[in-house]
């Protein structure tokens, strides 16, 4: 972690600034007609025609097609950036002003059945955003995510209803996942066992410690067997006793899932569990491939970063990037999926 560089959120470059720069450049290089916007240089002559590869649709679990995500966030001092006294004053009074934060840009990849994909990246690189897009909670600003069934997230961050008891939360959670009352009854004992909370189940959820609540959430979330599974790193929390109990269940769920995503900072877990690793850095796909190799690059990169060796970090970054084969998804004519999931889970 670099401590000396202050945290600066990434943002869409302001048109005003870039225009100013462009004007500067225009004045300087006015007589060189080639550098207007560099457009003719965009496709250098060395470029090879793209390799077309057909993917067997039977094996495909998940397709991310050119997905980008830009958040619009309210920020209280955004008015300082707007030009013109009037708009500035208006924005200041309403406290409005929206900052656009690009979280992911033009991400494309295809995941096949049977793959376990680890997702790594430094904090703020867009991992959580990617997960949100994959579960369909948020629609990408551009591009789309397609899958063979709705991916299910296993995380401990999603809280349940605070005012009702643990018992009621279990039942409510089961029903919310689309189980019938009979199925929910059948799952009840298993959930209680995994959570290990049999004494506290009659108390309202707000009396639970955060550890207890996350255990309950985990137990409820793993009561179904999803085909596409997303596992959040936060599952690594909890005491040793709970971790031992969850590991068994997690392995079971993983074993039956068609494909698994694992988001984690623990490279050990990733190397151990995954057959493929995706490294996202600053919202862009930086590497996609063999866990050993990607993790090694990542370790080197973060080591340089944490010691403030920015130049070395950049070397690693560029080196890794060179190895990347960006993929472009192309659906055969008229087969771009439009339909919704047949049923959430069952």
């Amino acid at each position: 972690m670099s401590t000396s560089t202050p945290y600066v959120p990434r943002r869409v470059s302001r048109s005003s600034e870039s225009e100013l720069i462009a004007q500067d450049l225009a004045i300087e290089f006015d007589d060189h007609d080639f550098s207007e916007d560099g457009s003719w240089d965009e496709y250098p002559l060395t470029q090879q025609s793209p390799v077309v590869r057909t993917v067997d649709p039977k094996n495909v679990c998940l397709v991310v097609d050119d997905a980008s995500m830009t958040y619009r966030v309210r920020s209280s001092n955004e008015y300082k950036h707007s030009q013109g006294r009037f708009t500035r004053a208006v924005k200041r009074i309403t406290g409005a002003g929206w900052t656009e934060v690009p979280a992911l840009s033009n991400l494309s990849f295809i995941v096949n059945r049977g793959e376990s994909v680890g997702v790594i990246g430094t904090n703020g690189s867009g991992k959580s955003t990617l997960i949100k897009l994959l579960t369909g909670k948020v629609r990408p600003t551009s591009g789309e995510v397609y899958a063979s069934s709705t991916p299910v997230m296993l995380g401990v961050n999603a809280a349940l209803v605070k005012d009702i008891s643990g018992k009621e939360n279990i039942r409510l959670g089961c029903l919310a996942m689309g189980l019938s009352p009979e199925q929910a009854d059948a799952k009840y004992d298993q959930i209680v066992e995994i959570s290990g909370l049999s004494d506290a189940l009659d108390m309202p959820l707000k009396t639970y410690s955060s550890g207890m609540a996350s255990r309950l959430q985990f137990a409820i979330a793993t009561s179904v067997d999803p085909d596409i599974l997303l596992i959040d790193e936060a599952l690594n929390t909890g005491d040793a006793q709970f971790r031992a109990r969850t590991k068994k269940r997690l392995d079971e769920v993983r074993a039956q899932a068609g494909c698994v995503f694992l988001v984690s900072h623990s490279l050990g877990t990733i190397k151990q569990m995954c057959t493929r690793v995706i490294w996202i850095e600053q919202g862009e796909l930086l590497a996609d491939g063999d866990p050993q190799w990607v993790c090694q690059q990542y370790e080197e990169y973060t080591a340089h970063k944490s010691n403030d060796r920015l130049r070395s970090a950049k070397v690693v970054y560029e080196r890794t990037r060179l190895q990347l084969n960006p993929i472009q998804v192309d659906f055969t004519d008229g087969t771009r999926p439009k339909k919704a999931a047949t049923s959430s889970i069952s």
Partner: protein
Amino acid sequence: MAAPTVERAEESEDSYESRQVAQLDGTNLIRVGARPGLFRYIREIWSFRHFLYYDSHSRVSTANSTDSLGRLWMILNPLLMGAAYFFVFGMLLNTGRGIDNFIGYLIIGVFTFRFFTTAVSGGAGSIAGNQKVVQAFNFPRACLVISSTVRELFSSVPMFFVMGLLVLTIGDIKLDGAESIPTTLTWHWLLFFPCIALALMVMLGWSLALARAVNAHTDVKHLISFGTRILFYTSAVFFSPDRWSNIGADWLVTVMNLNPLYCVLDIIRHAWLYDGFADPARWIVLASWAVGSMIIGFLIFWQGEESYGKER
């Protein structure tokens, strides 16, 4: 710590060299998070009916759980409101002049109005206020709004009991300047049920439309409380619509006749206080509001189905 954006600054073209195109047949895939078709959506809500029922049921018991008097407030609140309105409008401003059984009239007005507005504002906030559940599970989001309305119905049952008891016992107390018609329990009281059912449909339709609006722009919440005020004064909660026709403001009478909440109040009052039927026009207006707002509200809500998981 987010890394400084040095690497992004220079976009290198070298990666163009090894670009590859993956071609695939997407017939068996779905778009993640896509909104289902209208009929599928309705079917999905039906398949989540147990969730809907359980959600509304389990949360009724916990409402007001932080107050020391707990659920008693569901009855105390409209009672105190009624007493306050009786004092201000009945005694000070004397709006009850010429209304037979004014106490019963006021009780029905205040209790039912309260039921209506708490349900609508609760339903309107049910998506924005339940973001954690929305983020955690995949289910048709309309379930939350419906469950909020059903929950309000469940929790209002004791309130309606008290309302009936009060109307029976003190509703016909004679006040100055008005007649007193003794209130008795007759079969006309049963008209309450179809009337409340239609009112529920209106409430649900409005809640669905407002839930989408509130989720998109939180500012709408302020407008809701404003709209509630307007509704309060155009529903004849504490006065008789004759007041308007007496001063020649006939257009206001028309507005009131087209107001679904006024229709609800008028139907219940005729059934409970005056042992008779309200004008059939009230039923027609109320029923058209019910059907119309259900359909329009549902369509509006369904259209925005993909936007409810978005955080602000």
